[in-house]
């Protein structure tokens, strides 16, 4: 029984966000890198919803709704870009996609 401190939700959100950043930096598969970004967006949504609870306003829900819409649009475009890259190079490793150098 009992209620959950608001700061726990925010900490969870921060942890998930940091894990997303870690995935983005350390993974080499393009698709996993992209998924890490989705993880970060999810973390942000949790923050929005938590603040919304704390402020007793519905606005935060709207923001996370828009984030979802944007994430869906990004996923469509991003996966299409990944498909074109794969078609031209037959690889999904981000290190292999670097033909331009100083």
């Amino acid at each position, binding site marked *: 029984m009992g209620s959950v401190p608001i700061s726990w939700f925010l900490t969870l959100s921060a942890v998930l*966000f940091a894990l997303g950043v870690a995935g983005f930096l350390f993974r080499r598969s393009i698709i996993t890198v992209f998924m890490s970004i989705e993880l970060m967006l999810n973390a942000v949504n949790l923050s929005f919803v938590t603040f919304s609870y704390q402020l007793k306003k519905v606005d935060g829900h709207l923001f996370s709704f828009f984030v979802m819409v944007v994430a869906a649009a990004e996923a469509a475009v*991003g996966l299409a870009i990944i498909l074109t890259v794969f078609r031209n190079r037959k690889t999904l490793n981000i290190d292999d996609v670097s033909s*331009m150098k100083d």
Partner: protein
Amino acid sequence: MPVDLMPASADLIRLLPEIVLTLMGTLLMVLAAILRKRSSNAYGNLSIAALLAALGAAVYAYTRQGPAFGNMLVVDGLATFFRALVIVVGILTVLASYRFLRRQGAETGEYHALLLFSIAGQCLMAAANDLIVVFIGLEISSLASYVMVGYLRDDKRANEAALKYFLLGSFATAFFLYGVALVYGITGTINLSGVRAALTAPESCLQAGAGSVLCVQNWLAPWPIFLGVAAALLFVGLGFKVSAAPFQIWAPDVYQGAPSPVTAFLSTGPKAAAFAVFLRIFMSAFEPGGAAWEPLVWFSALASMTIGNFAALRQSNVKRMLAYSSIAHAGYVLVALTARSADGAAAVMFYLGAYAFMNIGAFAVVGHLAGKGERYQDIEDFGGLGQKQPLTAAMLTIFLLSLIGVPLTGGFFGKFYIFKAALESHLVWLTVLGLLNSAVAAYYYLRVLVMMYFREPSQAAIEAEPLRPGLRAALLVSAVATLFLGIFPNWVLDFSNKSAAMMK
């Protein structure tokens, strides 16, 4: 129960440029389906018409200034300036695209529709007064430009550029959003006017919601820290869009890999719109907590200038060199932002205006010379251009001199106002370092000039086709505008001063 969902006509008028652009973009798609022609000049002509109409709409909206849609949007001098700027950038991009796309056999309706949508997103950013509108405008502009970068799908470099731009762009967007979330938690609103009100009269706690951090913390905790973190996260997102250091790594690859007209567009349009948002967020909403974010911008300005200029020195690929130079230019603009004054804001606007013309012009020439498949991008390829195509070379000379900041060009006054504003805000060190940087920059621009006039014609210069009307118009307009801003700066400067003063 039924709410009146129809917005007021004044609201719609203030949104008119975006509406025009979106409708015309959709019309282009429908037309492309009806015409059943993959490649045609008609699409370009139509999109020029759309952009001219949008320009008219932006000016018309200016006559009916004020907030719209419950203060989500605000039409004022700043908004109108940047709307007009990105629309003009769009016109120049279309003019420069005609021949380029024809050469690639890719002058399709989709390209122009995406361009129009992207510009609509940038107009929305310029006028946005609410972080959620900023965010959606940013995404409209970005998603369209991701696709435009990878538009030539069979080009390996373009794919790679699109992928990098997309991944790093979305990464930065996530940071921006986290910043938005923190702002929402701290102040209880993400409306920029609301944020400002909450931060200026915080002790009353009335502006912010009862549950916001501002009220909860009760002034025992150091709230500027939270605001600083929020500002830093927002800065990451926007700094990425303007390719400010340390978020610049994508720029060289993307600028090099993208089709030249798209590069010209990317280096000016989204950048200008992002700086408009910068001005709104940092100079207006976060102004009360200015001390929290100033060191951040200071550092970023210096890093951008230095990294951009010194990396540009080493480049042999001209597109890549211009990419680094555009990082450096973002640094100069950040110097003006660091000044945190109305003069600084006016200088930002003036500089971006001048920069748009000279940079689009420079990239248009590069794209013209590069030939089919963008083979010739090396600095050596500019050899003897002055001999073979004197007009093109003369234009490029104007643009490069302006990029250096030579008097009588727009670039000179841009830099002048920026450093003046910085000095007035006692940023002596930043000014000195910035001036040193401009001196370094002169070297690599001059290298191109020397190549053009003092070398034997290269293969590229010999093969280069004569200037087509569209491209010639784009170059002439850019050159004339660059010179105009360099000789009669007052007209634009007065407007930006007035807008900057009004912004508060």
